[in-house]
């Protein structure tokens, strides 16, 4: 629910994804003041509808070279003071700048908010206005569903759980306040404290997760692993559609890593071909292996290439833990030389355990040589990128997580102090709850009273 508030808002005005340039729009009273902090080249009294060129810097680092277009209040789309930043069209750059803008005090605009402001300022007519209204209406009706869809998986489960925990604690605190003489068996201070600590840890973990998700959006890092001569480099070249890595029929041809870049639907994928995994005494090769394991820990997706011809010569140096890693995808290569069925039956005989593992993992049967089914892997990358885009890790979520963490830490501090402030503790906890519910897309409506009556026997 909002009126025309005084927040200065920002958002990307052009479509997301790769493009030549991206336009970021900043609207509101503070827009010039905020943008000038990162674009000091803007003159003291910029002219409306004029373009300025310079470097966008933050904390002594040049982020990008940009064009700035300034609009006076009353002469822009929203009728507010507006600054538009034209930067290079990589999602990495634009999302970085949006982050900086938020750190400097902007709020990320809600969907349709620029139009909404334009309407409130009388800049657009009735028909347009009604379209906006429908948009808002549709949005808020779908918001909860949409939010939940976005939040599939662990993330939303954790949040719903946190929400319940906090509501439960609040019920106890409020009962302790409003029914102080009822001698209720409310949670002890220690129990509260344990729960708070748990919530704090979980929030921290999620914030960490955001940073990882951020990496996903900045480009998917895909490592190719496997025993020597299983055809890793052939697959690498096939995916890149160029002969970047040297291939030969000799095991151990690739001793150092080779990296290559590829774009799927405008988004970047960084492919890394690694040295084959085998016992070795060679110093150079040993170094290469260390690097391989390093890459394995860093990659977003690990393609493990198996040689269909030698099923048993496969998992040297790879621990069981690594095999269970959720990022691990099996590629069974050289299906042009041996059929899937033959491979599986041989594997079952020779490596029962691995065979079981394989059944539970996503596996692609390909021939890197002929290019058979390689497209399936590409499609898989695309799926992953799409998930990364819509999942958890929107900047909006991150913002609320940070705030929730801030308030949970304050709660903790209050509980730690020897002075009892249930009124303040309750206030801080409600703030935490508000931010969590904001992510979940729920209306903030804490009927603690109902919860109290369900839990306690109260009454004079």
């Amino acid at each position, binding site marked *: 629910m909002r009126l025309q508030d005084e927040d200065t808002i920002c958002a990307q005005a052009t479509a997301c994804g790769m493009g030549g340039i991206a336009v970021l729009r900043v609207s509101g009273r503070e827009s010039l003041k905020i943008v000038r902090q990162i674009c000091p080249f803007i003159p003291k009294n910029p002219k409306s509808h004029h373009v300025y060129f310079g470097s966008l810097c933050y904390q002594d680092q040049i982020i990008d070279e940009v064009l700035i277009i300034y609009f006076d209040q009353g002469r822009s789309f929203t009728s507010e003071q507006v600054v538009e930043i034209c930067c290079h069209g990589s999602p990495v750059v634009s999302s970085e700048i949006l982050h900086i803008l938020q750190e400097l005090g902007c709020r990320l605009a809600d969907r349709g908010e620029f139009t909404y402001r334009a309407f*409130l300022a*009388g800049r657009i007519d009735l028909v347009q206005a009604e379209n906006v209204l429908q948009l808002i209406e549709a949005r808020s009706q779908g918001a909860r569903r949409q939010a939940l869809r976005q939040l599939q998986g662990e993330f939303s489960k954790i949040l719903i759980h946190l929400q319940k925990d906090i509501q439960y604690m609040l019920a106890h605190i409020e009962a302790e306040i409003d029914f*102080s003489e009822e001698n209720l068996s409310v949670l002890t201070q220690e129990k509260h404290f344990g729960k708070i600590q748990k919530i704090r840890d979980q929030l921290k973990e999620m914030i960490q997760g955001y940073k990882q998700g951020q990496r996903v959006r900045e480009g998917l890092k895909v490592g190719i692993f496997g025993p020597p001569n299983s055809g890793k480099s052939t697959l690498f070249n096939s995916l890149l559609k160029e002969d970047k890595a040297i291939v030969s029929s000799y095991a151990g041809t690739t001793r150092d890593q080779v990296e290559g870049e590829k774009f799927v639907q405008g988004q970047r994928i960084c492919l890394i071909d690694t040295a084959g995994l085998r016992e070795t005494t060679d110093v150079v090769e040993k170094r290469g292996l260390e690097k391989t394991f390093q890459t394995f820990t860093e990659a977003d997706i690990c393609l493990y290439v198996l040689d269909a011809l030698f099923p048993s010569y496969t998992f040297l140096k790879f621990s069981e833990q690594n095999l269970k890693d959720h990022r691990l995808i099996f590629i069974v290569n050289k299906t042009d030389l041996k059929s899937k069925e033959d491979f599986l039956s041989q594997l079952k005989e020779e490596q029962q355990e691995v065979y079981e593992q394989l059944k539970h993992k996503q596996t692609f049967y390909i021939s890197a040589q002929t290019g058979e089914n390689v497209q399936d892997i590409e499609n898989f990358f695309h799926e992953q990128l799409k998930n990364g885009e819509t999942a958890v890790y929107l900047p909006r979520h991150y913002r609320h997580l940070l705030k929730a963490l801030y308030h949970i830490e304050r709660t903790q501090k209050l509980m730690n102090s020897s002075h*009892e402030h249930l009124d303040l503790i309750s206030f801080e906890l409600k703030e935490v709850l508000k931010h969590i519910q904001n992510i979940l897309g729920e209306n903030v409506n804490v009927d603690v009273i109902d919860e109290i009556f369900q839990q306690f*026997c*109260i009454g004079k």
Partner: protein
Amino acid sequence: MKNHFHIIVVGAGHAGVEAALACSRMGLKVLVATTNVSRISYMSCNPSIGGVAKGHLVKEIDVLGGIMAVAGDRACLQYKHLNSKKGPAVRGSRVQCDKKIYSQFIREYIFQQENISILEEEISSLYIHSGKCAGVIRKDGSVLFSQAVILTTGTFMSAIMHMGCRKKSGGRIGDQATYGLSDQLRKLGFQVTRLKTGTPPRIHKDSVCWSAIQVQAGDSVYRPLSFFSPKKPMLPSELCYLTYTNEKTHQVIRDHLDLSPLFSGAIQGVGPRYCPSIEDKIVRFPDKISHQTFLEPEESKGSSIYVQGLSTSLPAFVQEKFLRTIKGLEKVKILQWGYAVEYDFINPIQIWPTLETKILPKLYLAGQINGSSGYEEAAGQGLMAGINASAQILDQAQFILPRHKAYIGVLIDDLVTKGTTEPYRMFTSRAEYRLILREDNVAERLFPLAKKYDLLSKEKVKILDQVIEQRVRYKNQLLQYKWHSQELDSILSVPEHKLWTAYHLLKRPDVSYKNLEQLGVEPTPQEIAEAVEIEIKYEGYIQRQNQIVQKNQKMGAMSLKNINYNEVKGLSLEAKEKLEQIQPLNLDQAGRILGVSPSAVQALIVHVYRRKSQPLQ
């Protein structure tokens, strides 16, 4: 008796009395009609005034000119500052009262008022003229005329008392029910339904074995409820006691549940969840092996003891049987049996925030008739109904307390915006701006409004002016005292800091105003120093809540008067219905209606803006 008045108040309980006195203070001629003059301001249930959240209400009533706080102080037998260790915002003052002195004090006061007349008679019908409430009709058919009527019928409209299988007409032991009014209201289109409440037995002082049970003494520090009361209690203090029910008690009750009207289906009305009968508690919480029972004196010189926690409508013989299983009550003699009352109330969404009804102009409702419960809740509404009815007659602005200014505001807004399905009691958790709605800042919150609406006598204004002035002076003074860290070493341990002012020292959780006195700050009366200390300590939080208030005030400034909700695009059917029914005054209130979603509020915003940009020709 002359038959023309400015205002007629029907009922003389806690709501009726405050309403009548408010009108009288505003210079209007008032008639109070009651069925029993000896029961004016009678405390029908528990012998205490105030409590958590209720203390807030009483103090607000005090600053707005009401009498409840003064009367509570006058009759005080024991004072307690509840939640004193749980944070200043949730502290609540409560006094145990001598019931007789309490109502006697108010009765005498109201009889002294020249412009208040008292009529001892049942009123069973309103006089309606050209669509407005214009008086009441007496039993003999004659009309008493007025420019407004305030109904404060309490539990008396079509009331039925239950004890076991016995049903009896009546709103309270010793008092008749009243008939006619609710039928007339129903015919006018009011939604009249039933609520239920109950009261525990009263027992004889001399039949209790006091030595066997726990003593509950009051606080050693006394803080009067009212700014205008003497600083010392006027009656000698009394003790309360605490005992517990046990497995035997519960067994007796379980064995006779079929005799309880609550479980036999005889009672249709919904009772309050926070004030369940003992049979309710035992059924709903079977695991609890014992319940607290406070024994509280009802009068300092009388013999009646109130058994708090054991409200019941079981038959008399069961009451006696289970009471006698309780420690200290083995030989108990019962003076009055517990019972339940069912009564009519009006769905409060049918009244405006001024407490005037939407259906019948010039008719105001206050107290239990609106679905509330409790003396303090009733008094607060009575006061506001009185002020608003008078303001309308005097052609003054209406007086609506916002939620961020007073618990009374929260109470009335909740009732008229959300309605209620159980007797509504005030809790601090109902107030979203709890941190700025404290007992200690009640003068700062409401005195400016009381002055603006001219609700206080000159003497009262003078006293409150002084209080405010003293606080401001003390606060400013705290900035003048300065010390170097070394100078403080011997008395306080504080971190190294260039220069400490008394003000900044007080921000620390471990420093109190008493420490400052040790450092040489001029001593100030406790009530002044405490209030200032809280304000300084909570400064950051107060600012944060004030920011939220400011944001919401913008919504409050957008009027929804004369809106045809059929013209608003994008409203769901449910939202439309609710909005038409409740007719919120502004967007802020609209947003609190159950069934009005945030998207509906967006739609309203757009509609209002559109209307604004296309002024009517």
